[in-house]
Structure formats: C-alpha cells, structure tokens
C-alpha cells in the first residue's frame, strides 16, 4: 500500500516535472548532437548522476571528475568499440526526486547507453523504476543498502547494479574480524535507530558475532540529530565490553567516541565506511586512536596510487572514497560494453549480469542473482597516531 502511494506520488511529480522541463528552453538538444546516419562519427552518451550541491557535494564532484577523466582517457585511446563516449552529468542535489528526474531525462532525452551513480542508497533505490521502464542499466557507486539491487520481496531488480559491497556484509566483516583476528568475545553496539544503514550493519554484526560464539553485552540506540550519548554509554560501560561497535557516520562517531572516553570506556572502537573523514581525526583524534573500521579499499594501496596521482594532478584535489568506486563503475561498464559488443542498453545489461573485472577496490564479480559484487574483499583500517593505517584485506564467509 505504502509502495503504491509512493508510486502515485512519484509519477504525479514526474508528470509535473516533465511539463515544467518540457516548456523550458534550456532543455533543448545539446548543440553538438550527433547527426543521424553518420555512423563513424557517432558519439555514445553515458549518463552520470550524483550530488553536485548540498551536503554531499564533495563526494559527488569527485565522482563526476573521475568519470569524466576516465572517459577522456578512453576516448584518447580510441574510445570503446571504436566509438567516442560523451559523459552527461546531472546534479541530484542529494534528493531522490531529483535523481528520478535526472534519470528520466538521461534515458528519454539523452538516450544514454547506461547510467553511472548515484552514490546514495536513497536515490539509487528511487531510480530503479525509471531504469526498468526505459530498460537502461544503472551502476551505483557507494550505495550500500541491500535494497538498491533487490526489491522488498527479495527479487533482483533487472537493471540495477553496483560495485560496492553491501551493509550486511560490512557488519559481518567487522564482527568476523573482531572475533577471529582480534580475539574479542564481548561486544557492545551503539547504533542509530532511525537509519537503515546503521540498522543493517548492526543486525549483521550481531548475527555474525553471536554466530562465532561471542556475546553482545549491550545494545543501545540513539536517534539521528542526538548529540549527547552519555546515558547510553554509561549503560554500555556497566556491561564492560571489549569492543564497541559504532555503525554510523563520522560526526556522531567523533562525539560519541569522545564521550565514551570521558566516561572511562576503554573498549576498542569499531565501525564501517561511515568513518573515514578528516573531520573525525580533527574532532576525536585521541578518542579513536587504536580503533578499527571496515572500508572499501586501502587508500595507501600501491595499486591505487596511479589513479590518485593522475586525479590530483588534473584537479588539484584529494580523491574521496567515491572516486575509487566511480572508477570501478566505469571499468565495469567498459568491460560489459566490450563483452556485449554493442551499445544497446539491454545487451549491456545482459553482459553486466556476469561481468567480472579487476577494479581498484578489488576483484568485482557480479552475481547474476543479486547484481552485487560477490565476495569482494573489505579493507580493515586501524587508526594509529592519527593516521589511517591499512591492516589487511578481509572477507566474511
């Protein structure tokens, strides 16, 4: 029922949006649109969507830069299947509705062969109905929610793919590492009850940790927007855990880590890919010292340095996590197109279902049943002397 209401709402807004955009003159065809019939000079459009304004603009800009940089390079080397590629980027402003509009425009007006992005799960989930309508595949970058590629009934969505691992996997990796490598048996969890990401990690951390013979001695919740966690932390302190799992984002991590230390909790802290940020170290350098978190890759891995250097030389900016996954999304798409031998979106989709490619965040083997990269290694990072230090690749079984 909820779904139907949402669908009605989305479609009404879409119709309105089409009416509005239809009348505005700026939406005319791109000036250098390819002429029909000139097959040799034909340019293939690839869409990218993500946040270029708002809270996540840093990440979105990095993805867009990465995608543009890579296709420039591909074009210089003769393109894909002898065709030049043009990237058409649209801003979603971090908004699911904007993302739907952008995909609608990309698929109906720009006739893209595939869509790369968005990075956020909320937007990635929203666009799947449009992708399915228009039969164009989409590859999400850092959208880790399971529902991005699988619907509520557990059936795989035919046109959604991704290159990152999913939330449950992160939780399982963290728990596995805590028990098997660090040798902990008593864990506490503090999590955001109002957030899917946090709940997903918590659920699977708990399952794996208990499954491996550990015990969850305390599990406390807070709500997004809270800034004081001491009541919950005092309770956790009573339970005396060896490890405290904090599956949420860096701001709350910094605040709660500081408060935990102030209360005298000396447990090792652990978290997921919501952690890495300069702000975390700035706010809570001493508190998170010696903590571990699960990440998509090791930033200092020699294999990623070429890309990092090229990017920094071109844009004079550091590469965000999103850049690496955008890189892998392009690699995956390129290999699927070559395998399909065509730019037909449905044929690309068929190739994506069994695509495997060596990305910079690890080997990506798409599972046709889930459209997720299967068994992708996670990187375990430890914070030592205010620096992110790679420990090892680790995968949950």
């Amino acid at each position, binding site marked *: 029922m909820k779904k139907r209401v949402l669908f009605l709402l989305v479609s009404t807004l879409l119709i309105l949006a089409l009416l509005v955009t239809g009348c505005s003159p700026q939406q005319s065809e791109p000036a250098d649109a390819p002429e029909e019939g000139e097959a040799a000079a034909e340019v293939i459009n690839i869409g990218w969507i993500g946040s270029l304004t708002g809270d996540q603009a840093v990440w979105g800009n990095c993805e867009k830069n990465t995608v543009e940089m890579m296709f420039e390079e591909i074009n210089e080397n003769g393109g894909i299947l002898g065709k030049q590629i043009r990237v058409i980027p649209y801003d979603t402003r971090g908004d699911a509705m904007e993302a739907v509009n952008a995909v609608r425009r990309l698929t109906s007006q720009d006739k893209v062969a595939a869509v790369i992005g968005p990075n956020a799960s909320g937007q990635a989930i929203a666009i799947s109905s449009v992708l399915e309508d228009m039969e164009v595949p989409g590859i999400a970058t850092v959208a880790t929610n399971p529902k991005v590629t699988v619907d509520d009934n557990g059936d795989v969505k035919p046109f959604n793919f991704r290159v990152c691992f999913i939330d449950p996997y992160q939780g399982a990796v963290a728990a596995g590492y805590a028990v098997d490598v660090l040798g902990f048996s008593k864990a506490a969890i503090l999590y955001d009850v109002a957030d899917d990401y946090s709940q997903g990690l918590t659920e699977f951390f708990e399952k794996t940790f208990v499954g491996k013979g550990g015990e969850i001695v305390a599990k406390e919740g807070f709500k997004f927007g809270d800034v004081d966690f001491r009541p919950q932390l005092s309770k956790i302190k009573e339970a005396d855990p060896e490890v405290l799992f904090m599956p949420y984002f860096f701001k709350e991590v910094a605040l709660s880590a500081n408060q935990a*230390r102030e209360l005298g909790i000396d447990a090792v802290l652990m978290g997921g890919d919501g952690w890495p940020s300069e702000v975390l170290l700035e706010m809570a350098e001493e508190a998170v010292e010696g903590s571990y978190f699960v990440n998509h890759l090791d930033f200092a891995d020699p294999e990623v340095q070429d890309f990092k250097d090229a990017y920094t030389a071109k844009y004079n900016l550091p590469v965000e996590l999103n850049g690496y996954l955008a890189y892998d999304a392009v690699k995956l798409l390129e290999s699927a197109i070559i395998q399909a031998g065509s730019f037909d979106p449905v044929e690309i989709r068929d190739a994506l279902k069994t695509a495997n490619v060596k990305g910079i965040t690890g080997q990506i083997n798409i599972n046709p049943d889930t459209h997720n990269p299967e068994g992708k290694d996670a990187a375990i990072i430890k914070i030592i002397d205010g620096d992110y230090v790679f420990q090892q690749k680790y995968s949950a079984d």
Partner: protein
Amino acid sequence: MSAFLQQIINGLSIGSVYALMAVGYSLVYSIMNFSNFAHGGVIMIGAYIGFFLMTAFELPFIAAFGLAAIGAGLLAVTLERIAYRPLRKRNAPFLYFIISAMGASIFLENIVIATIGPTFRTYPRVFSTTPFQLGAISLGRLDAVMFIISGLSLLLLIYIIEKTKTGMAIKATAYSIRASTLMGVNTDRIIFIVFGLGGVLAGVAGVLFGMKYTVYPQIGFITMKSFIAAVFGGLGSLPGAVIGSILLGVIETLTAGYFSSQYRDLIAFVLLIAVLIWRPSGLMGKITEDKA
C-alpha cells in the same frame, strides 16, 4: 550505585545546558508574554561568533567567550528593535509576535546556511578530554567548566534581578507593563535590557554548546527542548526554568539509562505532560490566563 550516580552527573550536565537556554525564554516571556522562538537563532549565532573568533582570529577562549556573549546580546537587542518593537507600538496581538519570532529564527538559520554553509564546524579543543575521576565516577573537564559557567551566569542574573534598581524595574514591568509605565518606569529601556540579558546568556549557552557538541545551523532546534523545560518549570519564572531544565536532563538520562534509549524522548515528554495536567502553569509558574 556508581552507575546511578554517573547517570545523575550526566543528567545534571545536560540539564545545565538546557537551563542556560531556558532562562532566556523565561526572561522574555515574563516581560513580553510571548515565546521568543528567535532565541534559538541567537544561541546559534553566538556559537558561530565564538567559533570564528577562536579559529579565524585565534583569540584565547576567554576573550572569544566574552565577545560572543556580547555579540549575541547585541543581536538579541537588534532583533527586538526590528522584529518586535514595531509590533509593540501597534499593540499587535501576541500571535503576531510569535510569528515574527519564528520568521526571525528561520531567517537566522537560513542566512547561516547561505553564507557559512550547512555543514557542521568543530571548535578547537580548549580542555583536555581526560576526565576527573571521583571514585568510579568520571566528570568531564568541559562538563565541570560548563557547570561552573552556567551556575555563575545564573547567579549573576539573579543578582541583577533581585538586588539592583534595574532588576526591580524588570520585576515591576513583568508584573504589569502598563502600571510600570504609569509609575515612570521607562519600559522600552527595560525591554531593551531584558533582551540584552537574554541574548548574553544565549551567547554563553551557544559557545558552551558548540564546544561540547559542534556548531551547525540547526542548533536552534535543540533549544526546543529547553523551551519545553521552561514551560515545564513554569514560563516566566527564572528558578522554574532552571529547575525544569535540570529535571528534564535528569529524567532523560535516567529513562535512557534504566528503561530504553529509544523511548527516551517519549517517556520524558509523557512525564512532562502529566506534570502540566497536574499543574497547568508549570512547577513554579505564575497563574495567568491571557498568555500566549
């Protein structure tokens, strides 16, 4: 037992921040009879002033703290001039004041988002995070400082109101603005002073809040809780605002600590509603009927 004491300390420390914010609401309410929702905005600006003085100008904590308090006081006074005085001169209904206050609050929040940006900022660390250990109980250094500063500011405020001539005039104006005017009290000046005092306290609260948590444009939203604490204690009563805030802080922590952290707000606010049913004017509020 030590866990219980620790939770009480946590509650007192959260409550003391609420208290600093709540007295600002109560002060203005006692004179003007409306809830000054722009107070949250003033607190937020105070926090930003302190932040920029300490980061961009690298002023020492004490100097930045004082200047932020003065800056917030000036802002509150300016707001009174622009947003409330014209209404007052026209004898506008109370509802208009509240709408004007909400407008000012939205304006302040959005001007910060537009000019400084929506992301949060972190204060440079002034106090070490190593806590004081009292047996099994730990008390954060910053919390201790917040306790002391909150306490001193509130004592100073009570001194001004109880022991000075201006304070007497404030009390008289709170009792009846019309009668005070007839008695030769310059009520415009009194209102100016009340907003100034409320603003200075807002600046103090803003800087302390920013140091403890972070600075972001939606800080004003947190002050909703201190407003509720002020209502709970009895709007218009300063001791009521303080007691209401401390109680709210302690009830919140105990609920989270002994029942469920998810239900914290739910249980805390159901308790507050129960108190208001039992005593409609709050714990220490004056009985009035025409207040908005």
